[in-house]
């Protein structure tokens, strides 16, 4: 069972989770190779967080299972926990403890040999330039500093797989860049397998080797970012960006009924339309004019991951979540709790 190059680091077998009559994760089958960075993309409540909670043994699947480094998440959960690190959306840190005290606690809980602990903590603190702040209490830290500690906390046990749920949510641009850089180094230098969820398409594009688009508990598309983008155009689809002047909030709905339109989504003044038609540009512009919309600019765009997302889920990524920084890192997924007041 010890991992060899042929067996994937993570493999799921019809992995499912039901809360009462709500299916959060619906028979997911995926496999991730050692050293891969795999991204989960999906709207709120799509099942990303629940999938990660199952893979980190925080919640039990209702049916199906998965293996991590050859260990079964249901039957060998303790072994799974030994090889897995978790960077959760809510930071796992005790505010009244210092950075080093936090890290030391988790080193102990992960059974790191006593004589290795301090050396390893120094090493990890140095990699994120936090040596100087090691003995300060977490409550004094900025969000960016906290997140650096939060990420290296997941590394104290030298895990083979690290799950990162929104690791850059709410961070300033500098910290975001630092964390992304660290993620790349973890894979490049140590061959750590990383599963990542993010709201930022650009981030997924830069970091991920492969992406699984997850919607309503199912994986609806899975490939490398460039293949995913290429697939949209291959099928004869065109992405058109319409910049409108003071459009109504439901301007996108005007396009949804137009012949050939696959999807349309609006972010303030911008409406993105994916359309399968030879005279794509003309059709979209005419539809806009017919509905009395004022066009500031209209252009045919190279598909981005957002278009991929729009194409497969029929929805734009939640704009508010992307643009609003900080203001607490509260969870938005079901988090293993019963879904209360579901979105949609």
């Amino acid at each position, binding site marked *: 069972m010890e991992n060899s190059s042929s067996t994937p680091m993570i493999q799921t077998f019809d992995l499912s989770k039901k809360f009462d009559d709500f299916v959060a994760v619906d028979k997911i089958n995926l496999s991730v190779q050692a050293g891969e960075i795999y991204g989960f993309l999906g709207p709120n409540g799509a099942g990303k967080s629940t999938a990660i909670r199952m893979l980190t043994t925080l919640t039990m699947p209702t049916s199906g299972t998965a293996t991590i480094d050859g260990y079964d998440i249901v039957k060998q959960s303790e072994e799974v926990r030994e090889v897995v690190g978790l960077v959760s959306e809510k930071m796992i840190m*005790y505010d009244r*403890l210092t950075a080093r*005290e936090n890290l030391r606690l988790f080193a102990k809980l992960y059974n790191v040999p006593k004589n290795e602990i301090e050396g390893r903590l120094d090493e990890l603190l140095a990699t994120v330039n936090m040596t100087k702040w090691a003995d300060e209490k977490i409550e004094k830290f900025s969000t960016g500093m906290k997140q650096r500690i939060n990420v290296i906390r997941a590394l104290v046990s030298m895990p083979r797989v690290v799950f990162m749920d929104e690791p850059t949510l709410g961070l300033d641009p500098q910290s975001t860049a630092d964390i992304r850089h660290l993620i790349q180094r973890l894979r490049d230098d140590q061959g750590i397998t990383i599963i990542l969820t993010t709201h930022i398409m650009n981030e997924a594009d830069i970091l991920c080797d492969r992406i699984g688009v997850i919607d309503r508990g199912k994986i609806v598309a899975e490939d490398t970012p460039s293949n995913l983008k290429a697939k949209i155009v291959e099928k004869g689809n065109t992405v058109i960006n319409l910049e409108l002047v003071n459009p109504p909030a439901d301007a996108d709905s005007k396009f949804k009924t137009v012949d050939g339109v696959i999807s349309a989504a609006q972010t303030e003044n911008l409406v993105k339309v994916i359309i399968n038609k030879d005279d794509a540009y003309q059709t979209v512009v005419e539809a806009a004019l017919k509905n009395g919309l004022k066009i500031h600019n209209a252009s045919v765009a190279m598909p981005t991951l957002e278009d991929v997302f729009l194409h497969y889920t029929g929805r734009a990524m939640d704009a508010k979540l992307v643009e609003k920084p900080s203001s607490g890192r509260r969870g938005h997924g079901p988090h293993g709790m019963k879904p209360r007041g579901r979105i949609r």
Partner: protein
Amino acid sequence: MIAMTDENIIEPVKVEPTKISTRPKSHERAPHSSMRIKRTLSHSLWIAHKDLLEFSRNRVMLVMLFVFPFFMMIMTGYIFPSGNNVKDMPVSIVNSDNYNGTGHAGPESQMLVSALYTVNNNTHFFKYKSVGTYNSAKEKITKGEQNAAIIISANFTDNIRSTKPGYVTVLYDQSNPTISAEITGILDQLMDQIGTQHAVLQINRTTNLTIVQTKAIVKPYSISNTGTIPGNPSYFQFLAPGMMMMVVMMGTMTGLPRAIAYEKDSGTLDGVLAAPTSRFSIILGKVMAQTVRAFIQGFVVLLLAVVLFGVTVHGSPILLVFMMFMGIYGFIGLGIMITSLASDEETASTIMMVLQFPMLFLSGVLFPIQQMPWYMQYVAKVMPLTYAAQAMRKVVVLGAGIGDIMSEIIILFVFGTILLGLSIPLFKRAMTR
């Protein structure tokens, strides 16, 4: 989307290429059982250490540790009527005595009134006010100006002079039963005393017996009250042991669910659960930390009681510590159970309130169980705090030995064991939903 352009400009910080050590190939797995026990203990000690470290750095909590029991002692020690706090209660005296039809008060009634005043000059229980009629006395009670009225009947002197009893009515305020009970109790005693004195003098006048001999005939039984311990224990002496147990109970019952619910809400519990740590070591570590806390809280109450409220410990200090431990043992299962049933901090607090309030009032911590109606006494008897407080009181006030409180110890042990047995599997299940 604006953020994206920003962060494309910014270069990632140049990090010195410290090579992060790679994972050793042969990682120790599947430890055998002695190793497992060692790990469980080590993990739980670290979790306890962490909890206590956090606690010791929480200044507000540390201050509250002293303030809370202090206020509880002050409040409960002074708000409840305890006999000797009846002072200057306004009471009317209506002398309707109509001596020989003259319309004036006769000598017997005047003597009674002056005796009432004389006794009161020493005790200051009441503040008498002479009132003309029964109706105005009644009105004063209704208005809340007076607490009671002593009404001397119309043919008081005539009756006594013709060797019939002189009638006195005590009118009391029904809206305040506690105060009324106190006042009527004291008045009864007072009347009895004055009456006896009157009888002794009367008999003494007509016979040739001495005062002492007459007294022995009129009041043949002489009663004196002595406790089993020296001195006269105050209400605090009664209150402090129960209060200690109550604080220990509250600490163990609320501390645990609150700590775990808080970690659940803040997300740190996920970190601990995702580590190769058994559910048992988490609960054990938390319980250890809460036990230490509860002990500290109990000792704070004891310290305040001894230093500020003059409470004396008559029993063995070791037994006292042991009883505190038994109290914690009795309640910890309840704490774990609440933790497992409540999904968040708010629910946990609500469940705790529902359980704690009846315990607080019905367990004989604040007032003796014997004062409750019989059905409430049955309720009190199913509450573990009743036994914990009772045993602690016996140790502190009466200097009881372990043999004297064995039944309480057994009850707490059984109660604690049953609850632990039920709650630990419940907790493990709740943690892996």
